């Protein structure tokens, strides 16, 4: 894929947390990615966003830093690193809003052929998981290394 990523990431020794700085129109904004076990064995939730005053992830804030594609690519890079380390795990993610989920769906759809070479991708629909396809509505996405 031809997208640029932020080229320095800080991480924990188990790769469960990544941090980087978004650099753009509104200055330098620290960003955090977290992978957390869910109630489903082997499935880990991906959370991403700004770091709030409680040191937690705020995934509602809109930074408007002009680097959306670079941020998405950096998150994808972190997922790639994480799943290389934990090839038996699934990573689940959805947007904090429907619009963001749609954005993630479109980003995956545009790069689907290349992503499918490396990953199994499923789309969450109402009560079901179906293989990811372009042009379907999704509520969440779940991915694992092939």
């Amino acid at each position, binding site marked *: 894929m031809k997208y640029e990523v932020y080229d320095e990431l*800080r991480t*924990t020794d188990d790769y469960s947390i990544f941090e980087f700085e978004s650099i753009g129109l509104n200055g330098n904004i620290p960003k*955090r990615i977290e992978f*957390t076990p869910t109630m*489903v064995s082997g499935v880990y939730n991906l959370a991403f966003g700004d770091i709030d005053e409680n040191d*937690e992830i705020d*995934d509602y804030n809109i930074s408007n830093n002009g680097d959306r594609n670079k941020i998405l690519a950096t998150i994808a890079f972190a997922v790639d690193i994480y799943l290389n380390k934990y090839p038996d795990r699934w990573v689940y993610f959805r947007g904090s809003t429907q619009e963001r989920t749609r954005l993630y769906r479109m980003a995956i759809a545009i790069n689907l052929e290349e992503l499918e070479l490396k990953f199994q991708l499923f789309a969450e629909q109402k009560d079901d998981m179906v293989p990811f396809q372009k042009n379907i509505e999704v509520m969440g996405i779940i991915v694992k290394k092939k």
Partner: protein
Amino acid sequence: MKQSTQKHKSSLFKQEVTLVVDDSLNRLKGKVLAPRKLEAANKALSKLKVVLPK
């Protein structure tokens, strides 16, 4: 503060990234830093009827 640096190249991106394993970040390990997000994920995953392939 101990740090170690690794270079990572992804087969997806034509770019090398510097990964800094940072001790100060390790203090956050095990904490849930997005509790509402995790709650929403658990709620969604609990409704799924399909077993994911191994």
